């Protein structure tokens, strides 16, 4: 589903964010990217949806070398990928329903499709009764669920999560992880960057560990360190 081949990325000449990184993620897999801040976790996620381009190496997603595709194809690549962030990136002037519907609206989905899919995905994340609330009326965990609903509403092949539990207390974080696990169970590939030891140790999924831009460990059913 995703393959990095000897990828090197630096943001400026002094700092190399990622050095000669290679790894592959199979369809339906759940992978943790772990390591301290600045170790290159986010860079990997940003390379996967072509928010960044590498200096060297290739990034393959869903059978395509995404750095050789023309810019005009990027939106269609991104429709196959859902994104979740530590800060949710919800639109504060829109309700829960509108935030989720927005993701379908801006890729030109017709109204009746939106009317079907949004309630379904809100049901999945357990927010059916809060679709008219605004983000500031929700708890952090609920806001993250909205952002997961928005990422998943278009049924993407891949979900990229950048520290999704970073702003949440442990119990709420666990709830979010259960939700991601369920989504993963539907066949969606999940790649999640985190430095939350407890969660990684609890889930026992594949762990790819990074240290200053280098992959130092790749372990099935791994723990944080």
């Amino acid at each position: 589903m995703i393959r990095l081949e000897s990828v090197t990325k630096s943001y400026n000449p002094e700092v190399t964010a990622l050095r000669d990184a290679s790894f592959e993620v199979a369809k339906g897999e759940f992978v943790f990217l772990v390591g301290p801040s600045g170790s290159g976790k986010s860079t990997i996620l940003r390379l996967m949806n072509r928010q960044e381009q590498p200096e060297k190496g290739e990034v393959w997603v869903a059978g395509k070398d995404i750095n050789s595709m023309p810019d005009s194809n990027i939106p269609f690549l991104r429709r196959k990928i859902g994104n979740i962030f530590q800060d949710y990136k919800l639109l504060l002037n829109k309700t829960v329903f509108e935030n989720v519907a927005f993701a379908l609206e801006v890729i030109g989905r017709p109204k009746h499709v939106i009317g079907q899919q949004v309630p379904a995905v809100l049901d999945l994340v357990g927010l059916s009764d809060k679709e008219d609330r605004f983000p500031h009326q929700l708890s952090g965990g609920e806001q993250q669920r909205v952002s997961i609903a928005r990422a998943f509403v278009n049924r993407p092949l891949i979900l990229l999560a950048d520290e999704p539990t970073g702003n949440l207390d442990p119990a709420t974080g666990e709830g979010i992880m259960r939700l991601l696990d369920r989504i993963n169970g539907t066949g969606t590939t999940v790649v999640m960057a985190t430095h939350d030891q407890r969660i990684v140790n609890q889930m026992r999924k594949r762990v790819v560990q990074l240290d200053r831009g280098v992959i130092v460990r790749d372990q099935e059913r791994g723990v944080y360190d």
Partner: protein
Amino acid sequence: MLARISYAFRETWASFKRNVTLTAAAVVTSAVSLLLVGSTFLIQRAFDNLLTRWKGDVELIVYVRSDASPEQIAFIQEAIESQPTIIDVSKVRYLNQAESYAEAQKLFAGDPGTLRLLTPENIPSQFKVVPISDDSNLIRELGESFRGVEGVREVAYAQDVFDVVSRVSQFIRVSTTVMSVVLLLVAIGLIWNTIRTAMFARRREIEVMKLVGATNWFIRIPFMLEGLLQGLIGGVLSCAGLWGLNTAWSNAVTEFNDTELAALVVSDGYARWVMVTLLVIGAVAGAIGSGIAASRFLDV
């Protein structure tokens, strides 16, 4: 498709309301610059009308001394009419002192100092002569020959006045064109800035749109539509202004109905054509300004 169109219009309208002050500034600037563009067209047309009319009219004026005797005047007239190959004898017109004075009242309406010096007694009477020959040298030679005739005070060539008016018209054409181009660029810049601000205000939305796979054109179009609309509204305002100006101008000029100045009236048909042009220029300017901004600031 319908969903996309309704999205674009909804977003355009919402953004319009959000940025009232900046939008107003951009609209007013484009209206003023377009008004200047339109005025340039109309002024130009008025001068062209005037010049065309003059060309076919008097080209030679023989001024007669105010103390000339009737015999001298008759002799001058004879001298003029003895040249039927060069001048159109049937169009030779004599304005006596009273008539010349009346004409001067209009010609020097804006110059009361000169007017005070003139009286029906001291003003020269004049022969207005229309040449039929196209050879301006021949006409000039003839004019010079009149200078020697007794009682002639001065010979004036309309060609000279014509040249002056041409130069004035040329100067006005260049300066108003330059001014309107500069103002138009300012208007484009303001529209550009309004759109940039609108995009900055919505950078979070744009970021989300890009992440969920909205195409660049989908993101861009509401902003470009907004800029186009600003230009277009500016165009509509400038049309209203131009129509008002042209009406006032036409009314003012009509008071000089019996002089050449009446040629300064611009026909309604031409004014309408100018208005359509203004609308098109406004829309294009708006699209350019917002298009540049929308492409440049999409990477938020």
